[in-house]
């Protein structure tokens, strides 16, 4: 609905106008937006905390709207990272920040905050991590910033933003066997390029969305940054609302939220039609996400490590898909297989469903939730010349370890098939039948009760 006299707007423009207290905004406008949720992790928050302290302000603007999530170097990999954790913990305690998620009660922030019903539709969410665009999957405006921007938000509750142009992707058709959100976004990045949507909002629409679960949509929004975009968004529909309501109920955080939709006559900088029905599973070759091609056409490179993890593909759908292939099979002896569920809650549900046992029996190491190998920080760093097939989002030079290591990005089914075959493989090569759509992409992907959260206890 367009109010009289107001220009037609996209979902992104409406959220930003609301947050800026303006009746309308247009691409290019500089606005000062009220922030609904601010997030920092163990790499970015300590820098932000140092900057915040320089300001000489005592308290953050609203501790209830701040989430601190140690994810990158947890469990602490060395003394330096233990100190980063201490800085966050102490700040959370001192500021009364209740949404601090300790090891064993949290996970990777981009999957955790929607799971915990802290990220909601219609919000403006500012995260000091580039993949903060992930929250766009539930219809929020969400973007990644650096630590100083986060510090300014902690102090004032506001952020200056340039209203982005929107680019519309119309996804058509029904995804074929083994095709999930990862394949859609890799093909989109190959289409537009690594900076093809710089400074823009990628808006995903179209009939194929009805076949993409929340877990797949999180992946769509997650990799907006790999096309240079400021944000990625899916306007809420029944799938979103079922997920959000369920998560609110389970987390005991039921509150109102706003649902915005793009006006039919809203203006876009560009529009791309994507035939999802014609898509095959994709692989991005080293060392750019945009180097995506169908797995069926790619060289059958031998691999040293398969990594199923990260904020991109370690959700329940992803683990179910990998387990579907690995059940009763073993990873090739030459391959190290690592599985890292994205959050504690996902870990627990995967455990209840027997998926962790499937992985362990296949010869995988299954770890506690952490970013780990994704950023080459710890837990599976690659050596010179090693080849890794990974479900994460970046295959840059040196990203997962040595600068001569090579990383291929794929969906979880391709990763699992590759582990079994010992070389890059299409899932069909394993002889496993594709799963029923409903098995994998169950709408809403709701699971279990939320983990306990709360301010870190007072020091003894």
């Amino acid at each position, binding site marked *: 609905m367009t109010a009289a006299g*107001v220009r037609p707007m996209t979902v992104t423009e409406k959220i930003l106008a609301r947050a800026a207290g303006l009746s309308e905004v247009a691409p290019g*406008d500089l606005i000062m937006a009220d922030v609904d949720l601010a997030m920092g992790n163990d790499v970015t928050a300590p820098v932000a905390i140092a900057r915040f302290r320089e300001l000489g302000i005592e308290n953050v603007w609203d501790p209830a709207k701040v989430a601190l999530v140690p994810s990158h170097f947890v469990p602490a990999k060395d003394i330096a990272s233990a100190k980063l954790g201490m800085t966050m913990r102490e700040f959370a305690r001192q500021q009364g920040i209740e949404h601090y998620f300790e090891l064993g009660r949290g996970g990777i922030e981009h999957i955790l905050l929607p799971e915990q019903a802290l990220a909601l539709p219609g919000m403006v969410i500012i995260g000091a991590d580039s993949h903060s665009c992930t929250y766009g999957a539930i219809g929020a405006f969400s973007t990644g910033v650096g630590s100083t921007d986060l510090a300014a938000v902690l102090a004032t509750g506001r952020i200056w933003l340039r209203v982005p142009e929107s680019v519309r992707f119309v996804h058509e058709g029904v995804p074929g066997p083994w095709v999930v959100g990862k394949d859609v976004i890799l093909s989109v990045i190959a289409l537009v390029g690594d900076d093809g949507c710089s400074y823009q909002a990628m808006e995903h629409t179209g009939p194929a969305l009805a076949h993409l679960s929340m877990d797949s949509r999180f992946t769509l929004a997650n990799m907006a940054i790999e096309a240079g975009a400021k944000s990625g968004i899916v306007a809420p529909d029944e799938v979103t609302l079922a997920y959000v309501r369920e998560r609110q109920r389970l987390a005991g955080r039921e509150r109102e939220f706003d649902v915005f939709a793009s006006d039919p006559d809203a203006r876009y900088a560009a529009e791309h039609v994507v035939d999802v029905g014609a898509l095959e599973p994709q692989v991005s070759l080293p060392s750019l996400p945009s180097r995506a091609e169908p797995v069926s056409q790619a060289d059958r490179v031998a691999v040293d490590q398969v990594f199923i993890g990260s904020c991109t593909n370690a959700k329940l759908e992803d683990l179910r898909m990998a387990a579907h292939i690995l059940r009763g099979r073993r990873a090739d002896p030459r391959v190290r297989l690592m599985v890292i569920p994205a959050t504690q809650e996902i870990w627990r549900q995967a455990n209840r469903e027997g998926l962790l046992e499937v992985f362990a029996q296949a010869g995988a190491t299954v770890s506690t939730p952490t970013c780990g190998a994704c950023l080459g920080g710890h837990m599976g760093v690659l050596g010179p010349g090693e080849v890794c097939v990974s479900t994460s989002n970046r295959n840059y030079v040196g990203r997962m370890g040595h*600068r001569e290591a090579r990383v291929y990005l794929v969906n979880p089914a391709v990763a699992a098939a590759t582990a079994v075959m010992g070389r890059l493989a299409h899932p069909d090569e394993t002889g496993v039948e594709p799963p029923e759509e409903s098995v994998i992409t169950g709408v809403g992907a709701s699971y279990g009760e939320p983990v306990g959260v709360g301010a870190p206890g007072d020091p003894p």
Partner: protein
Amino acid sequence: MTSFEGRAFVYGENVDTDVIIPARHLTSIEADELARHCMEDLDPSFASTVRPGDLVVAGRNFGSGSSREHAPIAIKGAGIACIVAESFARIFFRNAVNVGLPIVECPGVTDGAEPGDVFRVDLDSGSVENATRGLTFEGTPLPPFMRDILDAGGLMPWVARSLKAGDAPVRVGVARDEPPQADWRLD
């Protein structure tokens, strides 16, 4: 400072923040320590040869990838006075200005450029000259709002200034009538 002259480190396209400062060094937040490892996966000689006042000239999409502010902090800590790139990734662009590191977006700037060429950069006009090759380029000056942040020394001093002025920081933008109504509101 509104203009710079210095010899340039010249790099290609898509210089991402993982090569500017690899994750293995992110357990530090000290500029000196980060500077010691700056660019080590791309140009291992950078940290040992950089001198204060040098420039970085690079291709498209400089600073892509991770939001780590450690990247502009490392570059600034290494003594780089200004970065000129054909284009910047957006988070890096903000982060550079926020930490007080001057940057200019300038299409074509890497044309014919060789490492060690001397460049002159004018922040006000955005014009960039490759003095060694006698080439000039028209870049885009920062929008006034961002220039104001840069001139204040970065976002923190800028916020401190606005807080002191009792104007927790200025609202920019136009009318403040009715914000848009939610298309539906859920309870």
